[in-house]
C-alpha cells in the first residue's frame, strides 16, 4: 500500500489491508505522522502528536498481529482524539491555559475501550476551550483552519477532529458534542459525524462541559467507519451513572442487514428564515435522493424549535459554571503566581487560566442559578426542555427519522463571529435540540457550495436507534457518494 493509498483509505479498508499483510501499523502511522508534519502547519488540527509513542504502539500492534494475538480486526489503526478525554500519560488540556500542563493520571472508559480494541491514540486534537464554541477559535493554543479553505473556520467545538479527518491526517477521530460540536464541524469540513444517543457512550473520562448534554462520538469519512468506531466506544458503564444500563445491538452489525426504506420527517421549522439558499437547495436535493431510493417523505412540525437556543444556553452554562469550578489552582491546574492569599488564588488562577468565552459562560451560568433567578431561568429552561423533547417523541409517532440541514450556512470565515456571541450561538440552531432531547444525530456531507465549501445534512434518530440511523445514512452514501477532496490535500499542503 503506498502513502497515497494509506491516507485515502477508510479505517475499515486499512483494517483489511493489515489483515492481508499489505501494510503494517508502523507504515500506516508513519504515513499519517508524515502527513501531519507536512500539512498541519497549515491546518492546525493537532495540539500535540507524540510520534515516538505512536510508533511504539504501532510496533506493539504489529507484533500482536504477527503472533496471531490481535485485539480486534482494527488493531493497529490510529484514531485522532479531541483533547478532552482522559488517557493515562497523555496531555488533557481541553485547549485551555488552565490545564496547559496537565497530564492525565488515569484513563477514562472510552480511552480504555480504544486501547482494548488495539486502536492507537493518535495525537490530541484542537478544540474550542472546554468545548465551548462553534469555530475552534476559542482554543487558547491555536487556530484550526478549514482544510477546504483556510480562511474559514472548521466549525467547533470538535474543529480539530473534523479538520484532521478531512485533511487525511487520520482516518477517523473522536469528538464530543454538547450542542452540535461533532455535527457542525463535520458539516463544515465535509466529513461524517455522529452524536450518539445520550447514555450510549460513557462520559467517564470526558472533561465535562454540560453533563446532561455531553456525548462522545465518532467522526470519519464513511458511514461504515463511523458505525465501527461507535461500536468500539459504546456500552453500559458502571462508572457513569447516566450511561444506558442495557447492552445494545452493534450498529455496524445492523448496518449490514437488509435496509427497508423508511419514513423521513421534514420539520418546517428547520427550513425557514436564516437558512442560506444554497444550503436549502442542497438539502432539498438530499430529500429527492431519498425519495428516489424509495423513502417516504412527510412534512412534520417541531413547534418549540425556536426556543432551543436560549433553553440550551441556560442549561449548558448553568451546568458548566459548576463543572468548571474544579479548575481552581489548588490541586492540578494552573496556579497564578500573583495570588496574595488562599482566596485570591482562585480569582487569579481562574482569571488567568480561562479564556473569554469560558469566563462569559461561567458568569452567565452563575447568574441563571443564582438565588432569585433560578426559577425564571434554569427551572423554566428545564420545563421548556421537556416541551422540546415531547415535540420529537410526537414526531417519532409518525416518522422513523428526521432530516434537516446541519447548519444554516457553510463554514463562516475565521473572525467573522468572534465578537458576537449570540450570532455564534445561532450557528448551532439546528443541532442543539437533538442534545436537549438526548437523541442521536448524524451529519453527512451532501455537496459543495459555490465557493467550494462543504454542506452537510442532519439525520435525527429515535433513542438508541443508531443502527437504523446509520442505515438511512448509508442509503444516501450509496446513492450519492461524496467524492470531493479539499484542494489542500490534493496539493499536499502546497
Amino acid at each position, binding site marked *: 500500500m503506498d502513502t497515497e493509498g494509506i491516507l485515502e483509505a477508510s479505517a475499515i479498508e486499512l483494517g483489511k489491508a493489515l489483515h492481508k499483510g499489505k501494510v503494517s501499523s508502523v507504515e500506516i502511522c508513519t504515513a499519517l505522522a508524515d502527513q501531519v508534519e507536512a500539512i498541519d502547519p497549515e491546518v492546525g488540527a493537532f495540539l500535540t502528536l507524540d510520534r515516538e509513542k505512536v510508533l511504539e504502539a504501532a510496533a506493539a500492534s504489529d507484533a500482536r498481529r504477527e503472533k496471531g494475538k490481535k485485539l480486534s480486526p482494527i488493531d493497529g489503526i490510529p484514531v485522532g482524539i479531541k483533547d478532552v478525554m482522559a488517557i493515562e500519560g497523555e496531555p488533557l488540556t481541553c485547549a485551555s491555559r488552565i490545564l496547559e*500542563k*496537565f*497530564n492525565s*493520571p488515569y484513563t477514562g472508559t472510552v480511552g480504555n475501550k480504544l486501547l482494548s480494541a488495539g486502536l492507537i491514540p493518535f495525537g490530541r486534537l484542537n478544540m474550542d476551550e472546554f468545548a465551548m464554541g462553534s469555530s475552534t477559535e476559542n482554543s487558547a493554543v491555536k487556530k484550526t483552519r478549514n482544510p477546504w479553505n483556510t480562511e474559514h473556520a472548521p466549525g467547533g467545538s470538535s474543529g480539530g477532529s473534523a479538520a484532521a479527518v478531512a485533511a487525511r491526517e487520520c482516518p477517523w477521530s473522536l469528538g464530543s458534542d454538547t450542542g452540535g460540536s461533532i455535527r457542525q464541524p463535520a458539516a463544515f469540513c465535509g466529513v461524517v459525524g455522529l452524536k450518539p444517543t*445520550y*447514555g450510549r457512550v460513557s462520559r467517564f473520562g470526558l472533561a465535562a462541559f454540560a453533563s*446532561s448534554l455531553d456525548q462522545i462520538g465518532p467522526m470519519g469519512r464513511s458511514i461504515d467507519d463511523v458505525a465501527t468506531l461507535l461500536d468500539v466506544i459504546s456500552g453500559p458503564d*458502571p462508572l457513569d*451513572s447516566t450511561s*444506558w*444500563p442495557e447492552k445494545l445491538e452493534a450498529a455496524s452489525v445492523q448496518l449490514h442487514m437488509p435496509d427497508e426504506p423508511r419514513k423521513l420527517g421534514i420539520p418546517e421549522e428547520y427550513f425557514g428564515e436564516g437558512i442560506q439558499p444554497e444550503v436549502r437547495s442542497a438539502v432539498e436535493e438530499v430529500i429527492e435522493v431519498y425519495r428516489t431510493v424509495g423513502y417516504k417523505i412527510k412534512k412534520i412540525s417541531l413547534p*418549540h424549535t*425556536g*426556543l432551543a*437556543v*436560549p*433553553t440550551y*444556553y*441556560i442549561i449548558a452554562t448553568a451546568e458548566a*459554571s459548576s463543572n468548571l*469550578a474544579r479548575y*481552581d*489552582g*489548588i*490541586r*492540578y*491546574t494552573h496556579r497564578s503566581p500573583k*495570588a*496574595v*492569599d*488562599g*482566596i*485570591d*488564588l*482562585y*480569582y487569579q488562577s*481562574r*482569571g488567568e487560566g480561562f479564556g473569554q468565552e469560558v*469566563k*462569559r459562560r461561567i*458568569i*452567565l451560568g*452563575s*447568574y*441563571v442559578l*443564582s438565588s432569585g433567578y433560578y426559577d*425564571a*431561568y434554569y*427551572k423554566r429552561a*428545564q*420545563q*421548556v*426542555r*421537556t*416541551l422540546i*423533547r415531547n415535540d420529537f417523541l410526537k414526531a417519532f409517532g409518525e416518522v422513523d427519522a428526521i432530516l434537516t440541514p446541519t447548519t444554516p450556512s457553510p463554514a463562516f470565515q475565521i473572525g467573522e463571529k468572534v465578537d458576537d*456571541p*449570540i450570532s455564534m*450561538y445561532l450557528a448551532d440552531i439546528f443541532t442543539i435540540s437533538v442534545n436537549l432531547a*438526548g437523541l442521536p444525530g448524524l451529519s453527512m456531507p451532501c455537496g459543495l457550495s459555490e465557493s467550494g465549501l462543504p454542506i452537510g445534512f442532519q439525520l435525527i434518530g429515535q433513542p438508541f436507534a443508531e443502527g437504523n440511523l446509520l442505515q438511512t445514512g448509508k442509503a444516501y452514501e450509496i446513492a450519492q457518494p461524496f467524492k470531493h477532496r479539499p484542494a489542500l490535500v490534493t496539493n499536499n499542503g502546497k
Partner: protein
Amino acid sequence: MQERPEIDIDKLAMLARIHLTEEEKAAFAGQVSDILGFFQKLQEVDVEGIEPMAHPFDVAGPLREDVPGSPWEPSRALKNAPASRTDQIVVPKVVEDA
C-alpha cells in the same frame, strides 16, 4: 420588546471566583445582558404543569455495592499538583470563611 436585565458583574465574578479586568467587566456586563435579553423568549412560554427535565431519560440511578477498591498512591493523586509537601497539597493560608 424584550427586556434586557441589568446584571451585577462584580457579584457574579465573586460567585464564580474569577478575577475580571475592567475591560472584561465592561464587555461581559453588556454581552451577558444581551444574552439574558435573548433568553427572555422563554418567559413567554406557558410551562404550567410541565415537569422540569434534568435528565434525558427517566431511568433510576444505579447503585454500587459497598466494596472498597484500590486507592491511588499519593504520588499519583498529586501528579499535577502545583505545590505539595509531605504528600499534601500546599495552599496559601486560607482566611476562615472568606
